[in-house]
């Protein structure tokens, strides 16, 4: 679905952000795009959606060049940016005006998600709080039933119950032919949701594995300083250590934060 090969990108009068970046993604997964500040996560999402243009290299999304912004591509992808704009109109008017652009739009799904998010469709979008606006945008994005859903920091601005609801709704609203790419710093918010992790660092993909592959290779356990010798990576936490160790016993839940810190500190999972 997404084919990136030897992609080169730089902002005007700046050093190259991506040099020879290559990624391949297939539908049917929720991929977490992780990276430090300035690693290029948002830029990569914008390149995927045609909002930025690569200098060279191959970039194809569902066999389309995003740069061309063809209707056949735009009608099956949806980008939820971190900062967004809504016109001063009601939720109902907004979806009446925008839904016809998306051939797979599911009004029943939208009504269901709006109910779950406790949003009434007669509310004026500009009078909603940032979190409520974001919930509506996510609801609308999911209801388009787009093939590629790109979410940039989707849980920023959501309260704690809404974050849990977001995970539940996202997991329950997707089909096999859809691909979701989530860029986030809040790794805890997407734990148990993503099934593939890509870590970007210095404009390169330094890690690209499924959760299953990670679980098979490493375990995440709590321990004491004595256990550190065995660990690939460890971090002090109140009452002991969190450890990433080679998986020799049993599969554990992936501690994405620990994994991220391990990888960005130069460790490998084998």
């Amino acid at each position, binding site marked *: 679905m997404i084919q990136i090969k030897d992609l080169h990108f730089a902002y005007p009068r700046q050093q190259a952000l991506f040099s020879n970046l290559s990624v391949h993604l297939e539908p049917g997964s929720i991929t977490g795009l992780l990276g430090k500040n300035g690693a290029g996560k948002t830029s990569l999402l914008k390149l995927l959606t045609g909002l930025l243009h690569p200098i060279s290299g191959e970039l194809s999304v569902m066999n389309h060049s995003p740069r061309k912004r063809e209707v056949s591509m*735009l009608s099956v992808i949806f*980008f939820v940016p971190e900062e967004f704009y809504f016109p*001063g109109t009601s939720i109902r008017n907004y979806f009446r*005006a*925008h839904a016809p*652009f*998306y051939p797979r739009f599911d009004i029943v799904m939208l009504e269901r998600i709006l109910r779950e998010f406790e949003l009434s469709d007669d509310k004026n979008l500009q009078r909603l709080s940032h979190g409520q606006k974001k919930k509506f945008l996510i609801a609308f994005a999911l209801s388009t039933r787009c093939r590629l859903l790109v979410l940039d920091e989707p849980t920023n601005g959501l309260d704690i119950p809404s974050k849990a609801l977001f995970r539940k709704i996202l997991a329950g609203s997707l089909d096999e032919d859809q691909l979701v790419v989530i860029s986030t710093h809040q790794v805890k918010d997407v734990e148990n949701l993503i099934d593939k992790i890509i870590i970007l660092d210095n404009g390169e993909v330094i890690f690209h594995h499924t959760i299953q592959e990670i679980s098979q290779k490493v375990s995440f356990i709590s321990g004491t300083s004595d256990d550190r010798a065995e660990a690939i990576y460890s971090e002090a936490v109140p009452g002991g250590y969190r450890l990433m160790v080679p998986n020799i016993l049993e599969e554990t839940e992936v501690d994405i934060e620990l994994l991220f810190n391990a990888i960005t500190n130069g460790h490998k999972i084998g």
Partner: protein
Amino acid sequence: MLLFKQSLVINKRRFTLGLSAFSGFLFIALFFAQSVHNYTNWGNKDYVSTFVSIFFSLGIAYSAFSFPPFRSKEKSMAYLMLPATNGEKFVYEILSRIVAFIVLMPLLFWTVANLEGTVIHYFFPELTNYKFSFSEGFLSIVKDGKFEFWALILTLQGILFIFIAPFAGASHFSKSPLLKTILTFSVVMLSYFLFTFLIVKSFNLEGLHHQRNSLLFMKDSQMVIELLGIAMVIVNLTLLTIAWFSLKEKEA
């Protein structure tokens, strides 16, 4: 078509309020202008001159804010991601910002002017010339009542240029598009005149006009009008092309 429907659903309240506010403003402005003329010294020519000044000043401002989503990054992203072709977005913008204005503004002015004239005449009977007619007004300006083909082309292209230039500027400049467009055109015009001046000086061409009773290769004013007409067509097409590529290659 979807873009028009979308815009109508989202902006119908704003359109209605804008049109009402403008009609009210026009009503008051005409009443004020007529009262300044003591009602008696007011005629169709005054209506036309009021119309021309409002038409162009408002038209420039309106077309200078074409592509309103480009004024902010968030709006740009939403607009660029909307599933419509660049061609549809471009045509929608031309139709809503230039064509609709050129067609609807005279209609609105005519309606408000005649309504206002009738109302004011009722209270101030000394206002006798209160019926406004475009054709009468313009025919009184165009002395012999007829236009040559090339003069008509030049006039139409000149009017279109007044709208297309700020339209192209708005597609290219995100912030302060009107100011930046005016500055850009000022620089282009100044450079052109400076270049022409230097050419004339360098090649000692000052006497050419008097010697052959012509301006370079142009023999009479008709040829000047033809050349300017063609030049204006080329300039307008170039500006539309710039606007098209600005939209097509726009990044968020």
